[in-house]
């Protein structure tokens, strides 16, 4: 059962990956589009008046972001002659598994990320690998490394921020 649960959680954990990545993909970067999309998502977040109604703000943010990317791809499809116009079947949700450019983009990102991860202090790095490679919970990582779950969370925060800063300079 734990492995089944882990697998489901991993699937759900990853459910917004493609859409989120689209924000930072090369295809969008070539134009002002990515900034426009972020702006659009932000405006929609501001429209939420009754904050108490949002039980899961993170999920809500991802959902709005996913939808804005989707609407953007629809708009691009409708605009003939635009640089972004693509065959209909490829234009739906951005999915890096289709399209060599996205794939190349991903490979470059992964290679760069490996270098960035190698710069982390050992405990921090071990924490990242145990989490993302082996799928352990914070509690399990803490037990393995002899630190508290809270410390694990802190290390992950440090690692993610470090990676984000270094990956931004890549684009």
């Amino acid at each position, binding site marked *: 059962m734990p492995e089944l649960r882990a697998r489901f959680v991993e699937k759900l954990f990853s459910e917004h990956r493609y859409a989120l*990545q689209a924000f930072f993909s090369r295809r969008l970067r070539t134009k002002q589009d990515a900034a426009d999309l972020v702006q659009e*998502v932000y405006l929609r977040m501001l429209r939420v008046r009754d904050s108490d109604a*949002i039980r899961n703000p993170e999920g809500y*943010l991802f959902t709005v972001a996913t939808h804005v990317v989707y609407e953007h791809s629809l708009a691009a499809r409708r605009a003939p002659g635009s640089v972004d116009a693509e065959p209909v079947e490829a234009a739906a949700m951005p999915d890096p598994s289709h399209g060599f450019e996205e794939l190349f983009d991903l490979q470059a990102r992964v290679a760069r990320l*490996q270098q960035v991860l190698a710069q982390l202090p050992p405990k921090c790095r071990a924490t990242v690998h145990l989490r993302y*490679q082996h799928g352990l919970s914070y509690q399990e990582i803490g037990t393995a490394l002899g630190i508290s779950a809270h410390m694990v969370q802190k290390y992950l925060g440090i690692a993610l921020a470090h990676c984000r800063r270094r990956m931004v300079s890549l684009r």
Partner: protein
Amino acid sequence: MTEEARIRSAITQVAADWYAAHRVGQPSDADRAAFLAWLKASPLHMEEYLGVAALDRSMAAATQETGLSKETLIELARADLGAIPLDHGATAHRQPPPSRPPEVRPWRPALAAAGIAILASGAGFLAWRSSDHATPVDVRTYRTGHGEQSARPLADGSMLRMNTDTLVTVRFSPLERTIELDHGQVAIHVVHDERRALHVRAGSTDTVAIGTDFDVYRRTDSTLITVVSGQVSVSVDSPVPPQRLAQVPAKPPSKRRVGAAQQLEVVADVPAPEPRPADLRETTAWLERKVVFEERPLAAVAEEFNRYNDIVFAIDDPTLRNLKISGNFDAADIASFAAFLGSLGGVHVERLPASFRVSRVRTKPTTVPQRS
């Protein structure tokens, strides 16, 4: 480092801290409000949060490619003397989000309750084992109400999870394991037992597994079988109505093999000719009490929410019913879904006592304006 870069770097750290905190359990009301306020305070906050979240996929790929074993990693960490060299002078601005109780998952209570059930069923198992040779059968009926879910460990160690509005009868004997699905949806993790295949019967549709993870969703007129891992064999007995006996020659029930990440739909006792690729995220989302949809018509998504909640979404306008939307919500979180619909241009959501009425605002288009 410029002042601007310093500020951005600090924001990145706060975003990453929030992101890491969100991977553990459900946030408290206070945390939730604080996070939302932080997000809305600046588009830069939001962009950094999205940027950190977008790392996820590459993180998994980048760490997996190294193939480092757990043991190696633990050794690596133990050799560390504990210094945390931090860069960017970001710490001055840090407001680390509060820590959370570890790994509180919404369905934990259900599992704890099920822990009691496993003792009970275990006793039953022993009872019929030790009894004589009259192939005793252990029969149990489980039911969930509207909006309810539950997890049941079975006597053989398999795990049965039931979605809303579900009724099953579990029959275990030394020779066979059968789960009759009267209505509703179940996900089953089957413990391998070569001598006793596990059957899930949904009306005329029989799904057989030896050891695998799969989901069976029985609706009024159709049954959907989705395999997460391993494979199952599906057969349908076609009860031929008497008046058609003359025309239709009797044929053995046809078997279909359904493999991992595939699904097979049986409509009105007729299985699809071939399994099709399945979107496992959509199929298994209910296990986390989530509704996940990608480019699905609004009407279908609303129906999915209505399966779990007493307050329903009512949508009459045909254009709106067919509007394709994408998203991911807690199944019980209808307020967020209503807010989401309201955030789409040209959609009006009205709260009535027992429903949300979703209608179109005529003056505006239903999608965002085109971008140049």
